[in-house]
């Protein structure tokens, strides 16, 4: 495959990633995902596999050592997530590692820490209700009644069935709070399978009574509520999207080297060479921005939020474009269920829903740059 990988870190980190790579090589997740679309199943991932990944240190990768985690920097987590994106890993990496982990780390509460320990140990799979755009006020709201809170509203969430807990942003009197709920007591309805095998389901809160300790953090304003998802989360999801694009690209370049038409390998035709090389240029720009965003988050730089949104917008665009081009450059074979590029095409579109989509993040980056809606007066 073509080397569009990020730079080499320390030996320890490299060893960790090598082991992860080897595991993914044996795992054969692409075939698993292909079968999801044609075979009956209750859960769209393999729980035993998730536990094996936890054993390898994946689920605790960015959790601090004080909470039993590996305490690696976000950049390293990003490289693991990229590998998972390259391999279309069906386990809830995007939900639990990319979104729930940074979200819980930002809450600073005992409840959040206890969930993080469960994630690190591979015992808890956590899904997150996170909008692809702005936070909707009153989508789910909670009102205090004595010792308990009454919660009402309705939301949709990925990776249920399967996840053990769902984090929901709830509107309260003076802002928002994150609530952790067991989805199964809410009787999930309208479960659907998405184009890439992922499940999504609707959770109805019908004046559900919850005790105060189910809130995992303090009251926050709208920006603070989503900040961990829109910065660290978005940067990690970009690494996934980049991985998906990079692998779809390398599969395609390999195909251009073996497929013949008109008596020549199609990769020798300049029209196709130039299309491939243009994608290659954009992949190089994208991985540079993803890497810069993760490094900025590790360093706590003031431009980290901008870089995260820039990375997310670019990686989203790129994954959509590269996977579409991958089908075109394959020709008819690319339309078949058997060809991997179709699975990458579908996966990229669902992954693009995590952590705010590319359209939302471009507008957010514009706003962080001070470029938004000149008034017309």
């Amino acid at each position: 495959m073509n080397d569009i990988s990020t730079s080499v870190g320390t030996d320890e980190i490299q060893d960790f990633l090598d082991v992860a790579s080897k595991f993914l090589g044996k795992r054969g997740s692409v075939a698993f995902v292909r079968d999801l679309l044609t075979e009956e199943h209750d859960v769209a991932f393999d729980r035993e596999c998730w536990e094996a990944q936890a054993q390898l240190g994946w689920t605790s990768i960015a959790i601090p050592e004080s909470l039993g985690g590996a305490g690696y920097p976000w950049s390293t987590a990003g490289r693991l997530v990229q590998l998972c994106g390259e391999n279309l890993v069906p386990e809830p990496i995007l939900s639990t590692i990319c979104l729930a982990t940074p979200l819980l780390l930002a809450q600073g509460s005992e409840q959040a820490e206890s969930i993080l320990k469960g994630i690190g140990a591979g015992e808890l799979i956590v899904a997150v209700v996170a909008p692809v755009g702005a936070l909707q006020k009153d989508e789910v709201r909670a009102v205090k009644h004595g010792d308990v809170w009454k919660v009402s509203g309705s939301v949709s969430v990925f990776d249920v069935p399967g996840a053990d807990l769902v984090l929901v942003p709830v509107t309260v009197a003076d802002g928002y709070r994150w609530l952790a709920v067991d989805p199964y007591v809410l009787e999930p309805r309208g479960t659907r399978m998405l184009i890439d095998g992922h499940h999504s389901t609707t959770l109805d809160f019908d004046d559900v009574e919850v005790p105060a300790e189910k809130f995992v953090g303090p009251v926050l304003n709208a920006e603070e509520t989503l900040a961990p998802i829109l910065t660290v989360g978005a940067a990690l999801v970009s690494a996934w999207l980049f991985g998906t694009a990079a692998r779809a690209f390398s599969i395609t370049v390999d195909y251009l080297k073996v497929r013949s038409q008109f008596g020549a390998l199609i990769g020798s035709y300049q029209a196709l060479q130039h299309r491939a090389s243009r994608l290659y240029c954009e992949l190089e720009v994208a991985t540079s921005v993803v890497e810069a965003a993760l490094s900025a988050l590790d360093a706590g730089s003031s431009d980290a939020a901008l870089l995260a949104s820039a990375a997310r917008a670019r990686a989203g665009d790129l994954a959509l474009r590269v996977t579409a081009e991958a089908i075109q450059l394959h020709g008819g074979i690319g339309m078949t269920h058997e060809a991997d590029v179709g699975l990458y095409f579908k996966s990229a579109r669902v992954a693009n829903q995590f952590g705010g989509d590319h359209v939302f993040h471009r507008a957010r980056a514009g706003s962080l740059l001070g470029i938004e809606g000149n008034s017309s007066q």
Partner: protein
Amino acid sequence: MIAQVSDVEEFRQEIRGWLEQNCPPAMRTPMPGDEVPYGGKRGGPVKNSDTQKWTELAGARGLTLPTVPKEWGGGGLTDAEAKVVAQEMRRINARPPLVGSGLALLVPALLAYGTEEQKRTFIPPIARGEVRWCQGFSEPEAGSDLASLRMSAESDGSDYVLNGQKTWTSFATVADWMFCLARTDPNAPTRQQGISMFLIDMETSGLSVRPIRLINGDTEFCESFFDNVRVPAENILGELNRGWDVAKVLLRAEREDVRPWIEASYSFPVVELWREQRCTAAEITQRVIQSELDRLGLDALMDRARADAARGDARAERFANILKIVNGEYQQERAELAVYLLGEDGLTWSGGELLGGDAATTRDWLTSRAFSIAGGSTEIQLNILSKRWLGLPVA
């Protein structure tokens, strides 16, 4: 040799003091297009007299070619020290003391292929800004397909006699010398063999130059006509018939020398114009945002390219091709946006009461069309990426 940290810090203090004393205050301001220090004698004095003073002082201190050994007119600095010089110059916004193809392109080739005599003869006057060079590569029938060049060079006694025509010889009317490719063996087995690199005094008889007017009004590009131009054999750089190898070093240096262009691209004040013009069109606002994100992407790409190159990654060379394409296109989009936002002012060639008093943005926008053509067109870069870096089959 690895310099000790304390030595580097000591050097930093030394160079900081030197810059404070020697870099004229006028050379710590943004550089207008007519004050670019190209050096040379035939171009006449530059507009701001401090420009020449700065070139001379920096040249004498070895800062125009910091890492070139002192015996060849450079500063003899280590890479770490040169980095300190660059950092300290950036810190006070110092203008480059000297630019041009002699410094950026020919010197790397002289270092790689020049004889001791050639290095001693040609590098010091470049470093001092006394001699300006131009490039004689392209011909009317040899543009992107450079290896098809036809200018002939026939051996005659201790000289070679050159006949033919060169085009796109930038600044040939004001350059003192030209480095030039000519065919010394028309019967060589491949087109790349049989070419030699000549170093030619522009005042040699039989050499005439005519400026070409471009879409931006500039006349810096020229056609050069060779009518029995005699060049001494010792002015061949590299081996006879192996000029293509020398040219490759030069062309690579040309691709890597994108930094000035990249800085120039940032001179299109797209966000400021968008705000000043109170642009409310959603389409343009989107493009302005994307342009800023592209700029950020380019910065990240260059940082990564530098880091990979510094680590000695053999694949870092691909960044030269990628940067050439990406930079050119991002910059052209920025130029288009700037001119669109300027409205009729942006389309003004001369006269009227122009925003900012001149048509610089308009001329720079027209110039930007060359960014995807000069120095190896985007299509040539895509060919190289396809074959060399993606390993796609040759037709």
